[in-house]
């Protein structure tokens, strides 16, 4: 059974059809990487899968039902940490406000997850006082602490200085090794190559091609994929 599934998704922004009947699924423990030019609908697909936007047609299911709050974790390009809270409060927030955990329990769990992304020492710092890479790791911990069934990453390293990309990718790779179900929109082709179970090419609101990374990068079938890869590499 597939873990997270989007069936025949259609999404309009005004007159613009951003998703044109996308069917997508990711099995437990799989890592799917989505690539494609900007405006191809990658981010919209993630937002629909995360439940942040409702599709104009089609359905999203998690284990065959509607996802509950926090069950599908989302990591944003611009981190979106709550700027009025320090790192610890950011990670605790979902546990306290959504899961209704007592503060002492929430604090303990949040610290454990901050430790997991290597930032336990920085728990009292505010987003403004953390580097982009650190902020993104806190954002990952904030999503993970909710014990999601799947994690979605929307260009998680695109807003980072080049020397900070690695620390975020390391956290994501460790997560993949631990068997997290992941969907990652990224331009990091090496990450796709090493970590993905399969790579998807999106263009103009459709999935053009899907293949295991070896085949996707060495012998893409579609002309659109070949053109895209020629530009990126």
């Amino acid at each position, binding site marked *: 059974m597939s873990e997270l599934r989007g069936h025949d998704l259609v999404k309009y922004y005004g007159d613009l059809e951003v998703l044109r009947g996308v069917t997508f699924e990711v099995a437990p423990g799989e890592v799917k990487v989505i690539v494609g030019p900007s405006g191809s609908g990658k981010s919209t697909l993630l937002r629909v899968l995360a439940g942040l936007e409702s599709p104009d047609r089609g359905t999203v299911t998690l284990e065959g039902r509607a996802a509950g*709050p*926090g069950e599908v974790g989302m990591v944003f390009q611009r981190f979106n940490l709550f*700027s*009025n809270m320090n790192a610890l409060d950011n990670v605790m927030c979902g546990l306290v406000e959504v899961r209704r955990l007592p503060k002492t329990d929430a604090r303990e769990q949040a610290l454990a997850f901050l430790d997991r992304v290597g930032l336990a020492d920085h728990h*009292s710092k*505010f987003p403004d006082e953390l580097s982009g890479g650190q902020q993104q790791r806190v954002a990952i911990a*904030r*999503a993970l602490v909710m014990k999601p069934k799947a994690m979605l990453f929307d260009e998680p390293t695109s807003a980072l200085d080049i020397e900070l990309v690695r620390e975020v990718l390391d956290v994501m790779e460790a997560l993949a090794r631990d068997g997290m179900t992941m969907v990652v929109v990224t331009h990091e082709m090496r990450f796709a190559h090493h970590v993905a179970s399969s790579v998807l090419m999106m263009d103009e609101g459709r999935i053009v091609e899907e293949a295991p990374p070896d085949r996707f990068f060495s012998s893409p079938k579609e002309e659109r994929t070949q053109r895209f890869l020629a530009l990126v590499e």
Partner: protein
Amino acid sequence: MRGFVFLYTWFFRATPTLLQLLFVWDALPQIWHGFTESWFTPFLAASIALSLNEAAYMAEIIRSGLLSVDPGQELAGRALGMSRRRILQRVIIPQAVRIVIPPMGNEFITLLKLTSLATVISVTELLTASQNFYSTNFSYEEAFAAAALYYLFIVSILMFFQSRLEKRYTFTSARRRVRNAPAVPVALSHDAR
């Protein structure tokens, strides 16, 4: 609701405060005779007019404060499964408060000085009180100096609370340490030349 708020802020910001004061004091009692009774004092009329006027400006400040919070903040809250209300309480409002404090401080100071207009409806506010003083003994400098001192004193108190609030809504871990830090960083405090 949206239409009412628009009309309200439009009306009270577009018409002079003086006109609003005169309207509340002189015209309201003609519209409704309840306002002719003794409980409707000039002071109450001034309070009502200035409150209505100030609310229009405050509404604009609060609206712009809420709008200037990054929409990504709400998105992140929704991704965690937080309800709209919780997102507003825990995330949006605290951030908007930080943005809104300085313009609100300005508004309070403006309001304080607008009270001098209430003299037209025979409220003995600060400036009128000082005029009453020099009209009996002709010591203008003393009267005006005293009035100015009172204004300065009240504004200073407002500014004190404003800076306290600003500190409280500064989102850094160092906000309490800042007070004890040396005003000049040690490395720069002596000139090597």
